[in-house]
């Protein structure tokens, strides 16, 4: 749920990166963190296991500049991708303004992508949202791997409604900011529509 503060002239929004385990959600945030000016970002927090798997969430506050005198701030979150952390994923979706679904392009992860997307749809409904209405983009990550599935195939499976989608190699930053900007833009457009 966005927070519009007329007193401090700020618009705060929440974007969640969703996707199967090891698809690169945390890598997206790490790249954004590394490539953002210090004055535009806060501390990145990762609540991870001892083996560096996301346990609860990653969090990165980001300022994107001013719009009509309002400072726009985005709180970026990732969910833990592993199937058994579903209760945590539900909590993180609370108050979400936009979702970036990070798919793992590897053929072997096709089922995991579909399962995660179904899980996203279900969990959004539980929170009173619909994937068909909320600002939403898809990222096909790991496009550089030799076992990456053809793009058309992924699109057919994971993006039947034709939302904005992007090819990415998050470890190298390819497609990372494009994905972020696309979902942030949709969130602001939605906010404007609701004003």
């Amino acid at each position, binding site marked *: *749920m966005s927070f519009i503060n007329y007193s401090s002239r700020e618009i705060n929004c929440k974007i969640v990166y969703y996707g199967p385990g090891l698809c690169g959600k945390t890598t997206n945030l790490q790249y954004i963190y590394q490539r953002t000016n210090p004055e535009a970002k*806060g501390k990145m927090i990762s609540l991870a296991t001892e083996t560096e798997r996301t346990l609860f969430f990653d969090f990165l506050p980001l300022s994107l500049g001013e719009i009509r005198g309002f400072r726009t701030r985005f709180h970026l979150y990732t969910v833990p991708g592993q199937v058994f952390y579903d209760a945590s994923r539900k909590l993180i979706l609370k108050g979400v303004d936009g979702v970036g679904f990070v798919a793992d392009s590897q053929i072997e992860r096709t089922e995991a992508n579909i399962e995660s997307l179904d899980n996203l749809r279900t969990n959004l409904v539980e929170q009173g949202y619909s994937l068909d209405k909320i600002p939403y983009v898809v990222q096909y990550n790991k496009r550089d791997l030799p076992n990456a599935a053809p793009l058309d195939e992924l699109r057919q499976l994971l993006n039947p409604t034709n939302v904005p989608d992007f090819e990415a190699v998050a470890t190298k930053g390819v497609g990372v900011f494009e994905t972020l900007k696309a979902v942030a833009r949709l969130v602001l457009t939605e906010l404007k529509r609701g004003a």
Partner: protein
Amino acid sequence: MVMYEPEFREIQAVCERLQREANAKAVLLMDRNGQAISESGETQQVDVVSMCSLTAGNVAATSAIAELLAEPEFTSQYHEGASVHVYMALHERLILVVLFDKRSSLGLVKLRVKRANDEISRIFERLRAKVADPEPTALSDITDDDIDALFKD
């Protein structure tokens, strides 16, 4: 959520008084999504944005545990540190966080928080009525060009 200047000032005044009367180091008010609403006291050394996000995560997890145990809610949490202690009170959609040290006590903090919560409730009740019948806002004037300008490289 929408916050307007007059209500913000009132909330800020309540939090400042709570901080004073509870002898607290700092008081933070946030919503359950982790958006900071108000801060008062010694917050210079505190990463408020991170604090709010982690508190919201903590409260969300604790609320889910309450649900598992068929409890409606755990309405407060207390974390005791070596020198700084944290008291979190849940109230409707809000979380009030008080950081305190040896200058205060849990009993005093709890007592003052109760009064502050009642006052904050009344302010938010008015705010909700105002938001339900909004005046045209600056946001309705935002154009697609404004949004494009934000994302220009």
